[in-house]
C-alpha cells in the first residue's frame, strides 16, 4: 500500500477523503459523495459549464487547458453519440497521483465522469487505466458496480429520465496511449498511434463522436468544484490557475510523497519545507518540475509559484505535477540519457522525427556518457532535439526534445567534462549498462 503523507500547508480538497475508506460507497455517501452529481442533474448543462469556467480549473494531465472551456466546445446537437473519456493511463515518469485517487477515492472519478456526461450530453463514459494498475482497475470496477447497484449509473440515474453508463477499460502497457488521440485509438482496439488534429476530439473523437477527454485528477476534482462553487474553488489558487494540485515529490527529497497544495505554491517551499529538503543534507543540483518531459530548473530558478503560467515563464512547464528533485552527486548526462532512453522506448514510430530523433539522441548520449563523445556531439544533440520540435502528430517528440535541450543548455559544462575518453566524472554506479 503506497504511503500517504501530510503537511500543514496542504489544502485538502481532492485528497480530503484519502485514507477514510471512501472507496466503499456507503462511506463515500457519508462524506457527501454523489451530492454534486445530483445537483448537476437538477441544475443542467449550462450551470455546470459556467461553474467549471468560474473555477479556473485547468487540465491536470499537463497541458493546462481550461476544463470548462473544453467542455463548452462540444456541440449541443450531434448525429453521433457523445462520449466522456477519463485518462488514467498515468505514465509520465515522476507522476503517481492518479494511483492514489483510484485507490482511495474511485467514486470521485465516477461522480466526475457523470457530471462531465451531463455537461456535454453524453450517455456513456470510459475510465481508461494503464494495464499495470490492475489492482486499481479492480478497485474502480468494484466501485462502478456499487454505483450501478444504487442506481447512480444506468438507464435512469438517480431516478431521473437520464441515462449514463460507465465502462472501465484496461490498457496493456504504452506511454503513448496517454496522448488523447492515441487513447481513443487504443479504446477502439487498435495500435495507440496518434491522430492528426484538427479535427479535435470535441468534434470528432471516440467512434467518430464528439468526445471530452480529461485527466483522472481533473475529473476527480469536478465534484469538489461543484460542491464548493466555482468561484470559491478559484480563490484557493493563483491568478488564472484555480484550486489545488496534487504534486508528487520524488527523487532525492527527504520526504517524498503526493501533497495537495494550492496552485502557485512556492517551489522553494515545496522542496525545503513540505518535502523536508534534499535527502541526506546534500545540496540541490536541479529540479524537474512537472514530469520527465519538462525542462530542468536550476537551484537559482526555484523562487517561482507552481502554476501553469509562472513555470511557463521560467522556461519550463507545470506538466503533470511530478517534481523530481536531483542532488549534487548526480550525473546530469546520465540523467538526460535515462530520460531519453524512456522516450526512445515509448515512441510509437508513427512520425519519423520522433522515431529517428529519440533513437539518435539515445545513441549519442549513450556514447557520450561512456566517454567517447566529441565536442561536436554536444551541438549535434542540440541540433537533433531542435529539429524534432513541433514536427510530429502528438507531443511525444516535443516531450523528448524539450528536456534534452534543457539539459544541454543548463549543464553544458557537465557534458564537456565527459569529453575525450574520460570516464564519467559524476556517476556513482558506472557499472550499470545503460544501453
Amino acid at each position: 500500500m503506497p504511503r500517504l503523507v501530510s503537511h500543514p500547508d496542504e489544502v485538502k480538497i481532492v485528497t480530503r477523503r484519502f485514507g477514510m475508506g471512501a472507496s466503499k460507497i456507503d462511506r463515500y455517501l457519508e462524506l457527501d459523495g454523489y451530492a454534486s452529481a445530483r445537483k448537476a442533474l437538477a441544475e443542467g448543462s449550462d450551470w455546470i459549464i459556467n461553474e467549471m469556467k468560474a473555477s479556473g480549473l485547468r487540465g491536470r494531465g499537463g497541458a493546462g487547458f481550461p476544463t470548462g472551456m473544453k467542455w463548452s466546445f462540444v456541440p449541443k446537437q450531434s448525429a453521433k453519440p457523445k462520449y466522456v473519456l477519463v485518462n488514467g493511463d498515468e505514465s509520465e515518469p515522476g507522476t503517481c497521483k492518479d494511483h492514489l485517487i483510484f485507490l482511495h477515492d474511485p467514486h470521485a472519478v465516477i461522480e466526475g465522469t457523470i457530471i462531465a456526461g451531463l455537461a456535454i450530453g453524453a450517455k456513456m463514459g470510459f475510465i481508461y487505466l494503464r494495464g499495470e494498475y490492475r489492482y486499481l482497475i479492480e478497485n474502480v470496477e468494484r466501485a462502478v458496480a456499487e454505483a450501478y447497484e444504487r442506481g447512480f449509473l444506468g438507464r435512469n440515474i438517480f431516478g431521473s429520465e437520464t441515462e449514463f453508463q460507465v465502462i472501465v477499460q484496461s490498457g496493456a502497457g504504452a506511454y503513448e496511449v496517454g496522448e488523447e488521440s492515441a487513447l481513443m485509438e487504443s479504446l477502439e482496439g487498435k495500435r495507440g498511434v496518434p491522430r492528426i488534429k484538427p479535427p479535435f476530439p470535441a468534434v470528432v473523437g471516440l467512434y467518430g463522436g464528439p468526445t471530452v477527454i480529461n485527466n483522472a485528477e481533473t475529473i476527480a476534482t469536478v465534484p469538489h468544484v461543484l460542491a464548493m462553487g466555482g468561484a470559491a474553488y478559484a480563490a484557493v489558487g493563483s491568478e488564472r490557475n484555480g484550486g489545488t494540485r496534487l504534486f508528487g515529490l520524488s527523487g532525492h527529497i527527504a520526504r517524498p510523497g503526493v501533497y495537495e497544495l494550492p496552485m502557485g505554491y512556492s517551489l522553494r517551499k515545496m522542496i525545503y519545507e513540505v518535502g523536508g529538503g534534499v535527502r541526506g543534507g546534500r545540496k540541490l543540483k536541479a529540479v524537474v518540475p512537472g514530469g520527465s518531459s519538462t525542462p530542468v530548473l536550476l537551484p537559482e530558478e526555484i523562487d517561482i509559484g507552481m502554476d501553469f503560467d509562472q513555470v511557463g515563464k521560467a522556461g519550463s512547464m507545470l506538466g503533470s505535477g511530478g517534481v523530481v528533485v536531483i542532488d549534487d552527486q548526480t550525473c546530469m548526462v546520465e540523467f538526460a540519457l535515462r530520460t531519453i532512453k524512456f522516450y526512445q522506448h515509448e515512441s510509437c514510430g508513427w512520425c519519423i522525427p520522433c522515431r529517428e530523433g529519440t533513437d539518435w539522441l539515445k545513441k549519442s548520449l549513450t556514447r557520450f556518457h561512456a566517454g567517447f563523445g566529441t565536442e561536436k556531439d554536444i551541438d549535434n544533440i542540440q541540433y537533433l532535439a531542435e529539429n524534432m520540435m513541433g514536427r510530429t502528430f502528438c507531443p511525444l517528440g516535443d516531450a523528448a526534445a524539450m528536456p534534452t535541450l534543457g539539459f544541454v543548455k543548463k549543464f553544458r559544462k557537465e557534458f564537456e567534462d565527459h569529453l575525450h575518453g574520460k570516464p564519467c566524472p559524476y556517476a556513482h554506479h558506472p557499472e550499470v549498462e545503460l544501453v
Partner: protein
Amino acid sequence: MSAEAMTLFSPELAARFDALVERYPVRRSALIPMLLYAQDEVGYLSDAVIDEVARRIGITPLDVRNVATYYSMLRFVPAGRYNIQVCTNISCMLRGGYRIFEQFQERLGIGHKGVTADGVFSLEEVECIGACCWAPAIQVNYDFHDELTEEQVDAILDEYRSRSQKAGSR
C-alpha cells in the same frame, strides 16, 4: 468451434469474454483487455490464443498481432510464474533502482527478459510504473512492492519461491 478453442480458456474467462465483446459500441474495443486477460490465464499470447481472440472479435489473426505487438505488457513467449518488473526510470534510478535490478540479476542468474531454468521467475527492466513517490519500486506480476531496500530483495524472492512451492504441490 475447434476442440482446442473450447478448452483454451476456463469457463469463467470464456463467459467473461462473451460479455465483454457485447458491452462496447464496437466489438473490437474489447481486444486489448481480452488479450491481457487471456495472457494472465494462459501465460502468453500463443498462436491458439491469438486465433481464438480474433475469432471472438471477428477480425483476422494478423490484425490481432498487429495490435498486440504495440503493447509492452503483451508477450509472445512464456514468462516465469512470477514476472519481476524493476523500474529504473528517473525517480527510481535516483533512489537505487539500478542496484535493485542488479541484485535481482545476480540472485536469479538471469538478465533483462530472462527466465529461470525452473520457470519460477522472469525478470524485466521496465519503464515508469507510477510509484515514483514510493521509489524504488517493482512489480511482481501485478503486485507492487514500494520503497525497496537491497536487503529486501532476498526476502521477496523467498516469499514468492515458497508461494510457488505451495502452488506446485497442490
